[in-house]
């Protein structure tokens, strides 16, 4: 099945297919007897190089959708194609590896590990993705990449600091560096500015925009801020578990 998928992917990439294709996605949470249908048939596509904003009110299912796209959760029904692969049918090992190498996450609350330094936090996906045998061979390149990213993001003077010694904006920059360490095909950002003041938030936004423009980084960003949604190439509005055009 896997091989089949891959060959399919190869033939299809020739006709320049979208990076993400979501079709009729449903997600239902059952809370005891009550079931909550958070996503009710969502379909959309994201092409490589796009910066798409997903905005909607709190509780409208934005994060849920993002998690489906980022392989953190499995949908109740519907299809998610990631770079031509139907990820719903993948074994968890493959999903882990896609999450590690092809997707980068940025969260509202940064989620940096307090025991690790800024540099180590940035390199964490590298440590997760490599076995102890391969690690020594990869370490140097990863370190370089991490330093480069941190430099670009303006936190290179804090390499040995612990996350708690950083400001919110700095923490988010480190989180972005971590998300970009493997040059992911897709960067997922869940209200990356939600926990920051508007000035700092704008700076983070600028960073994301810059990566989109300079490096062609595909980004799907969740926000409940309509203004932010206007800065990007395309905005999707989600309401009551459905995408509403506009």
């Amino acid at each position, binding site marked *: 099945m896997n091989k089949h998928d891959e060959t399919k992917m190869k033939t299809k990439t020739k006709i320049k297919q979208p990076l993400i294709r979501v079709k009729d996605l449903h997600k239902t949470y059952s809370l005891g007897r009550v079931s909550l249908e958070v996503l009710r048939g969502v379909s959309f596509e994201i092409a490589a190089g796009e910066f798409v904003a997903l905005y909607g009110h709190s509780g409208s299912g934005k*994060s849920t959708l993002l*998690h489906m796209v*980022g392989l*953190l*959760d499995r949908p109740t029904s519907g299809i998610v194609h990631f770079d031509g692969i139907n990820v719903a049918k993948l074994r*968890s*090992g493959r999903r*882990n*590896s896609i*999450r*590690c*190498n092809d997707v980068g*996450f940025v*969260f*509202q*609350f940064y*989620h940096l*590990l*307090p*025991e*690790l330094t800024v540099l180590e936090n940035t390199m*964490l*996906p590298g*440590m*997760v*993705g*490599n*076995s*102890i045998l*391969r*690690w020594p061979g990869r370490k140097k390149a990863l370190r370089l990449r991490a330093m480069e990213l941190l430099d670009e993001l303006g936190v290179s003077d804090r390499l040995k600091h612990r996350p708690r010694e950083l400001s919110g904006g700095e923490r988010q920059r480190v989180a972005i560096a*971590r998300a970009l360490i493997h040059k992911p095909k897709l960067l997922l950002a869940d209200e990356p500015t939600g*926990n920051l003041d508007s000035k700092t938030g704008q700076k983070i936004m600028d960073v994301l925009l810059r990566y989109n423009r300079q490096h062609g980084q595909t980004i799907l960003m969740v926000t409940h801020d309509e203004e932010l949604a206007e800065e990007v190439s395309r905005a999707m509005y989600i309401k009551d578990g459905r995408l509403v055009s506009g």
Partner: protein
Amino acid sequence: MYKIFLCFRYLRSKAMPYLAVLGVALCVWLLLSSVSVMSGFLNKIESAAKGLFGDIVIESAGERGIAFYDEFIREITAKDRGIAEIEAAEPFILSFGMLRVEGDRNFRQHVQIAGIRLPGRADVSDFEDGLFVQANIAAPTFDPSLKKVIAAIERQQQLMRKIVQREFAPQLEKLSPAKRKLVLEHWTTLHYLSDPNLSPEKKQLLRQLANAGLLQNEALLSLHSVKKRQAELETLQAELAKAEARKTTETELDELREAIDDIIEATGMEQPAYRVILGLGIPGLSFRTEKSETVRYLVPGHRIILYVFPLGKRFSPTDISPNIHKFSIIDDSCSGVSSIDNKLIYVPFKTLQKMNNMAGEYDAENPNVLVSPARCSQIHVKVRGKRLSERELRKISAEVQRAWLDFQQRNPQATLTPVSIDTWRQRQVQVIGPIEKQRTLVAIILGFMSIVAVTLIFVILYTIVVQKTREIGLLKAVGASSRGVAGLFFLYGVIISLVGAILGTVGGYYTVKNINTIQDWADELFGLRVFTRQTHMFAKIPNDVDWTATWIIMVSSIAVGLIGALLPAIRAARMQPVEALRYE
């Protein structure tokens, strides 16, 4: 890769893991040291029991003994027809008597007298291991070379000089060099060290050392005179043997015998038949320093008088007249079990047989007719192979039993009373039983303590897993597998228990190795003396580490860590990243 890295980071960043390590270490330490010491006691009893009596003991009820013992021994040790598992067997006589020291009117001490054959005894037991003059000599005798005897006494005096130098260093310091030299060379000048400031204990030690030194010198003197007249004695003995063979007149024989007796009287050294090996620890014949060194008052060369109460035959309680004879001390034996060393002395088998009225009796008119056969009180059997289990020994013991019943059918006179055949463990059951029970009890109690260790590791890991919910979610978000996350916490638990186990083992090892020093400290600091020689039979607390137990404890404590880590690890693995990451 991240598993190991994060695991160490987690370990370093919290005080709790240290606590858990400490807990595990404590459990391992206590378990190891107590089980080791108890196993040590058991091993000592085993080696002492076997060391003296062999693996299996055949004993007749009462004092009438076993006859035709040599025939029976020959049957069970015969190459093809005997019992294959048996290596050797030896007769043994145990009797009671009183010991006096020549030249000391006041000293009398009741003793148990063992009649043994040398060097045969060394084949069935480890008797030779604890000897003073003939230490570790494969074939000890009642007639070792004089050189060896003298060397042993000189060794003893060397030790005494060391004690003097150690215990009276300040007093020695004060003496002039000439006097210092004198003190260390002549026991008669030891009183130079006397000083009014000496503690009563030191004063006593000084007196004891001087006393021992003087007594030893007497023995040395006697030994040197023996050496001088040895050649003369040997020619007389050779002549006597020749004369006896020639069947010359009684007067000529008597003359020779008298000449020999004269030499014995002059030198003070009895012939080999009347020599004794003392147990090292008979009260009044030696003393022990604080550092557990034994200093002998009586050494080879001294003579004792032995009163043997003959229980062997024709015994009437109203008329026990002892058989008395002088014996020369030739060696002493230390089994390490004080209850044995403080009352057993060893004399030649034949001699005791006679003195205990167990020798064979022949018809007065026809010396070829056996009226009553020679007897012994026990037969000690040595089994091939080391450390046989009780079950194996019992099987052999049953075979011996069968052989004996068969033998007795053919020789009805062999015993007049029932015979019991027991393994060494059966004979020591009163001593071993309680210790074995104690050891099990301690292991159980401490086993319960390891439940505490499990709980500790469990609680700590669980707290950490709960605390790290979001981080676990993040790890999964960046690609960590459930198995990987579980592995991380598993590793964490394993490292805690492994480090704890290693620390505990090292601690336990050093505790056990230095248990006697620790005991001494405790004694000095708090007057705490858990172990006394009298109650525990041994001179020292055993300080051998039980390696089997160590392995079992190590492995089980790591298992304990795994069990404690299991649930938290599973919880961490099951955690859904989405839920973990959702809220701050």
